[in-house]
């Protein structure tokens, strides 16, 4: 079982790859849209990447609730 920090680090790599956000900026309290300037298409791509990387399924109605990096990490922890 990966730790919260390990998941955050892997997610940070993904966010960097997709949206060019520096990995050190991808911290649990950051909002994807408001703090990291991730647009809606990049957000979709990050969630698709999470499904691939962590072997989770993220339904559309659930994805709307994943506003911060911490939300996404918690979801992955609970469902992987």
């Amino acid at each position, binding site marked *: 079982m990966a730790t919260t920090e390990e998941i955050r680090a892997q997610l940070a790599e993904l966010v960097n*790859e997709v949206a060019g956000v520096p990995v050190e900026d991808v911290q649990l309290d950051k909002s994807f849209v408001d703090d990291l300037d991730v647009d809606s*298409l990049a957000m*979709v*791509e990050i*969630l*698709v990447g999470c*499904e*691939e990387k962590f072997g989770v399924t993220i339904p*559309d109605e659930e994805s709307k609730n994943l506003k911060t990096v911490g939300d996404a990490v918690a979801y992955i922890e609970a469902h992987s």
Partner: protein
Amino acid sequence: MSLKASTGAPFARILSVGSATPSRVIDNDYLCQFIDSSDEWITQRTGIKERRWVGEGENIETLSVAAATSAIERSGVPLDQIDAVIVATISHYEQTPALAPKLAHQLGLGDAAAYDISAACAGFSYGLAQGEAMIRGGQATYVLLVAGETISDITDPTDRSTAFLFGDGAGAVVLGPSETNGIGPVVWGSDGGQYDAIRMNHTIGSGVKAGVFPTIQMDGQAVFKWATGYIAKAARRCLDEAGISPEELDVFIPHQANNRITDTLLRYLKLPEKVVVARTITHLGNNSAATIPMAMDALLTSGEAKSGQTALIIGFGAGLVYAGQVITLP
């Protein structure tokens, strides 16, 4: 009694490609008269700077004839030897007859089998799969495959999510028998559960009652998710089925619905730097079924791609449907 079966060629390949674009250039600023958007926003979200729409005297027939004429001339195949015509389109607005017989007649092809297929942005690869099978199965010796679209006719210029996406145009290829294989196995399928992800706002019937011409609508995020997830995997399967590694690939011509989908496909496929990638969307927009042959012609004409090179093509769109192959460029 025993029935005779048709026998075909060992393999098929694409002999030639041609394309046609309409004359009217529509830039992002023009469209921003009708929608609350900007050149910067459209470019950043889609990669599209401008597209071509049909103008005076131009329509799906004129574009299709021009593309087909170019492909036939380049192939050197005599007109009377082309025995099947497939037209891939979703923008020939007549329930019947199909565009293909009329096109065959205008081109002087005579008694060729001729019909249309409706597979949206995957139409070219669907038609290619059929044409290849017809040649190998002995149903035809030479096949003309035309993809023609004038999606501008069903575009609502005030719809902020689709107004800027589509461009008109046509592309055509001539397929023929070959001693070596030039068309890899098709990887194709559909997901009708997402039937309404790309849809018309009216049926013909309800449109007539409401006094409006039906226009295209799209759930952009659903399509983007499908394209960057499922389609990326399908593209990899095209390579696997053809027995080609990413390193052996020279050219990548995806259907260009959005430049950012292409970016994601590239990241997933991990194609080497040397692979030439079609980016005609920047000045032609999304040409639905015609995108792939139009881009193929553009890359060959500019010299960026060369005859005999190995290319991965994949189309995906309304249905949802998809199809892709590895091919040898004509």
